[in-house]
């Protein structure tokens, strides 16, 4: 058949027409549209049964109640619990982003690991749990066999007082090592100040909910201080109440808290003690203090004569002489009129409270400063009163049986701690990680052979972490129990990865700052995602592996058993409450003395309930008799701390007293050294060469502790805080123009310790001559969502040493800037 041109055209036209009229094009278009909706690389969330499970967030010592929504076995959302006494519904952004910690494959250790390459080479071999535990047990056994049990050291970041912390400490104790170190915290400073003035070792408790006037000397109350869930929900309540509290925020920068406050004062950083004493001066001078309290319950306020008949100048006269508003104005930069005004307002308030601290309170502060601020509470008679600073009631947790010490352990425990904490040099401090670092770096051989790291990332989170990293290089064997591939565990030899907070049961005993006894208990929300093991179980297995008396001190088969044994004490006390009704906030209960009896008739049912509800608490305060309240030698609140007197006398024995206190870093003389006073801390670097001050700041939406910042939090950072990989420092426009810096300029911030590459954000709210730098970024480990973003100010902190405590002063580094 001839196929003509004509036929071809007919065929083509007909074919085209036919195809267009057929359903084919429509079908194809529809298919394409559907395909664009179901691209295989767009994740499709698996369906499943919805459920919720209650727990407690243990990412910080705040212990907020959380409720986790699950689909099937997956956790899909974290929400705050309104039926939990601490937070009453809210949680902080870090807690909210918790699932990004749980499920982030890029930052978690998935199994026990043994280093195979050189240290820091990031070459690892996955090993079995038994093998890993065996290796460590053998090593510790070896130390004990050679009579060096003290060469085992541990750095513990677990929440103080928690069962985990107790367990780690018990291991060291049973092995025979005194070198149990904890990560330093702001709370330590509070505890020390109250110990020195009131006696008794306990956390500070602030009945903020019942105050009507707060002077915060630098606490970022709404920037992540204390238990953020509690603080934010408390603030919400205050803000909505018409007759709300008066809040004075003392801060060198217009922080969120400062902007929310009724009054913002910005003294020069480090002069807060002088400001507090200036306020005290006015209160004393105008006789606005609580005379009843001062007369009956205070020691050292007026001039006094000691047993030897020596005349001592009292706190009141010292303050009147040395801290007049005029003098304080010169020191702090705060006008005398303002000081007088603040003092009058403070003293005339119904229930004022003064708070000491810096930022989130993750790092220790200055002891004298804390004392000076606490002295205000005493002057106003706010100690052990509703709406004041409470002396916490003990939680009736049961104690474990005593540790069995074998001769090796007994011998080991007599050796001096590497960090010399608790010795005459640092009599009041429990642990000094900085001194530990120094001791290792200064000697030839490391005094520690095996280092155990629990829930801590000191390389990144402590001031001058680089020195710590140098010290690590000298320690022969490092074991990390961290669940995360953080900077510190990257330098370890053996990784025994813990579960994350949503996979395990741990407790928090007395969340930070809470003013009533509270025991918080988290429960596993999901099955462990990886081949990790609860650190508590690891410690117990380890002890069993070491054997002998060490094993004997760990009679439990697993962690939960050890924990339950303590909780039994709560049951035995017959007190407490487990459920919480939001309409009956705890602050109301605190008005009354007394306690609440428990309705439980068996431990088992009570345990089940604690597990389910995540807490046990007593919604009241016992306000003990005044005779028991102060556990000082004078049985009073001591403006003149006899504890300091005893300690300094002991330290200076055989030397010149003045030389001795100079060695301790105390610049003042005479009786003032035993009393709250302003101690000028001189930075190492010269002002002429380093004209600016570096002030690390903490943001509530930037994790600055040992948990790496989750990606969701990166979303909430402003682009004047982080842009691409550059961290911004806040600089006052005037200061910036002096150094030729503009908005967005790239610059080097240089301290004697090193330099940081940053960009500049001009911020009117920044104090002139101070460079404010956020803490929490600058990671060299973790995944690509975190690593290499920003810089870590801790690296260039030129730390001074706080007198008395020996803790690092991290807010006083002199720096210069160079535009690049």
């Amino acid at each position, binding site marked *: 058949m001839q196929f003509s041109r004509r036929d071809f055209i007919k065929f083509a036209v007909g074919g085209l027409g036919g195809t267009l009229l057929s359903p084919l094009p429509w079908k194809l278009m529809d298919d394409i549209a559907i395909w664009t909706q179901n691209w295989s690389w767009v994740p499709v*969330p*698996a369906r499943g049964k919805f459920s919720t499970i209650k727990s407690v967030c243990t990412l910080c010592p705040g212990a907020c109640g959380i409720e986790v929504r699950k689909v099937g076995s997956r956790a899909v959302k974290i*929400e705050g619990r309104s039926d939990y006494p601490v937070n009453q*519904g809210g949680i902080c952004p870090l807690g909210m982003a918790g699932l990004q910690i749980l499920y982030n494959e890029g930052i978690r250790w998935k199994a026990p690991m043994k280093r195979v390459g050189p240290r820091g080479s990031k070459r690892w071999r996955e090993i079995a749990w038994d093998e890993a535990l065996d290796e460590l047990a053998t090593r510790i056994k070896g130390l004990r066999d050679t009579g060096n049990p003290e060469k085992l050291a541990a750095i513990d970041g677990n929440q103080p007082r928690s069962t985990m912390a107790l367990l780690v400490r018990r291991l060291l104790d049973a092995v025979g090592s005194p070198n149990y170190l904890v990560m330093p915290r702001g709370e330590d400073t509070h505890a020390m100040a109250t110990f020195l003035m009131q006696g008794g070792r306990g956390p500070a408790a602030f009945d903020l909910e019942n105050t009507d006037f707060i002077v915060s000397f630098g606490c970022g109350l709404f920037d992540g201080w204390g238990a953020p869930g509690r603080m934010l929900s408390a603030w919400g309540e205050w803000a909505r109440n018409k007759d709300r509290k008066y809040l004075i925020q003392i801060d060198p920068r217009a922080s*969120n808290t400062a*902007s929310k406050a009724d009054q913002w004062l910005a003294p020069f950083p480090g002069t807060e003690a002088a400001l507090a004493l200036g306020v005290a001066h006015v209160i004393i001078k105008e006789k606005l203090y609580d005379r009843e309290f001062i007369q009956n319950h205070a020691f050292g306020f007026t001039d006094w004569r000691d047993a030897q008949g020596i005349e001592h100048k009292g706190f009141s006269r010292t303050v009147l002489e040395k801290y007049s508003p005029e003098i304080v104005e010169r020191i702090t930069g705060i006008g005398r009129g303002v000081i007088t005004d603040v003092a009058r307002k403070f003293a005339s308030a119904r229930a004022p409270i003064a708070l000491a601290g810096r930022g989130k309170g993750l790092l220790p502060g200055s002891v004298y400063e804390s004392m000076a601020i606490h002295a205000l509470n005493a002057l106003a008679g706010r100690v052990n009163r509703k709406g004041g600073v409470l002396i916490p009631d003990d939680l009736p947790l049961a104690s474990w049986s005593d540790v069995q010490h074998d001769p090796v352990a007994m011998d080991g425990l007599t050796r001096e701690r590497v960090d010399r904490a608790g010795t005459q040099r640092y009599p009041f401090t429990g642990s000094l990680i900085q001194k530990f670092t120094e001791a290792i770096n200064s000697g030839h051989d490391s005094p520690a052979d095996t280092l155990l790291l629990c829930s801590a990332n000191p390389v990144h989170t402590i001031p001058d972490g680089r020195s710590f990293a140098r010290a690590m290089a000298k320690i022969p064997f490092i074991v990390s129990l961290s669940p995360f591939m953080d900077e510190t565990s990257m330098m370890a030899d053996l990784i025994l990865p813990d579960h994350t907070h949503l996979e395990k049961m741990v407790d928090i005993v007395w969340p930070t700052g809470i003013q009533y006894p509270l025991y918080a208990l988290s429960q596993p929300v999901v099955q462990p995602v990886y081949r990790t093991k609860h650190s508590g179980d690891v410690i117990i297995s380890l002890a069993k592996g070491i054997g002998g008396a060490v094993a004997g001190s760990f009679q439990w088969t697993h962690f939960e058993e050890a924990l339950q044994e303590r909780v039994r004490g709560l049951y035995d006390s017959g007190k407490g409450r487990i459920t919480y009704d939001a309409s009956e906030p705890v602050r109301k209960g605190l008005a009354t003395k007394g306690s609440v009896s428990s309705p439980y008739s068996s431990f088992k049912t009570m345990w089940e309930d604690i597990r389910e509800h995540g807490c046990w608490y007593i919604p009241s305060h016992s306000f003990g008799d005044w005779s028991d309240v102060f556990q000082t030698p004078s049985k009073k609140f001591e403006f003149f701390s006899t504890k300091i007197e005893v300690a300094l006398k002991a330290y200076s024995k055989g030397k010149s007293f003045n030389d001795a206190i100079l060695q301790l870093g105390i610049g003042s003389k005479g009786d003032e050294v035993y009393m709250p006073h302003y101690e000028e801390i001189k930075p190492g670097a010269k002002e002429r060469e380093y004209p600016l001050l570096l002030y690390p700041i903490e943001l509530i939406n930037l994790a600055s502790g040992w948990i790496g910042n989750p990606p969701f939090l990166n979303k909430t950072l402003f682009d004047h805080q982080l842009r691409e990989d550059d961290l911004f420092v806040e600089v006052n426009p005037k200061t910036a123009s002096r150094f030729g810096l503009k908005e967005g300029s790239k610059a080097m911030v240089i301290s004697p310790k090193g330099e940081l590459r940053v960009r500049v954000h001009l911020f*009117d709210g920044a104090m002139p001559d101070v460079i404010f730098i956020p803490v929490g970024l600058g990671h060299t480990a973790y995944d690509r969502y975190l690593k290499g973003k920003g810089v870590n100010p801790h690296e260039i902190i030129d730390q001074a040493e706080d007198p008395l405590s020996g803790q690092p002063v991290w807010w006083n580094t002199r720096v210069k800037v160079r535009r690049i």
Partner: protein
Amino acid sequence: MKKEDRTQGTRYGMVIDLDTCTGCGVCSVACASENNVSVLYDESDKTRNITWMQLYMVTNGKGFPETEVVCIPRPCMQCDNPPCVPVCPSTATRKDPNTRIVSQIYTRCIGCRYCMAACPYQARSFNWFDPSFPEGMDRYLSPEVSPRMRGVVEKCSFCHHRLMRARAKAYADGRRDLKEDEYIPACVEACPTKAITFGDLNNPKHRVSELVKGPDAFRLLERLGTEPKAYYKSTKGWVRRMADNYLSGEFKGRG
């Protein structure tokens, strides 16, 4: 076109109290977590990342030490007169006549971004990238909200799936109407200071309808006529002034 009677039916809206808001960012994180919002490697690129609840920081412009900062959380304003809806060529975004929530149909969106040009609040984000979640994190994705594909615009939906959830529950209980707090978006629930109030602006029993009447209540860019249903509250005059453009001498607010 027939003019809409806005006094009828349900008009969901929210009031954000800026005096209470501390700028902690929980709302933003809760929103991202609730709505399967994807995460970029570089989240500092605010011009490309996706945030339905965006925080803005403003200062009163005064020098140290008189400076004040206030954070302004910005969800989709859910305008009653949305500039974005009439411009969408493919009917991918609509204002629900019953709830007055402005929806976005991702599978309908062709990605022309005209709605983004129309929205003065920058409340809409375009998926410049394939949705990405750091390794392993697809495990927390919620099946209630579909993850978006590359090339479409997304925005705050007032957590529409929560409305569905609440309705389903009410239906199961044999009720037709929702109680005041039965349906609230994730940000409202998450705000630890309870700075955000949510409800039906047309229902005089709901707190929001009372809150929007106060002298301190305002909306962003009110004079453009978009009629947002996300209101703000602040006793500070400078904050209220910051919410809109004024010629010199025009703003007569107190505080």
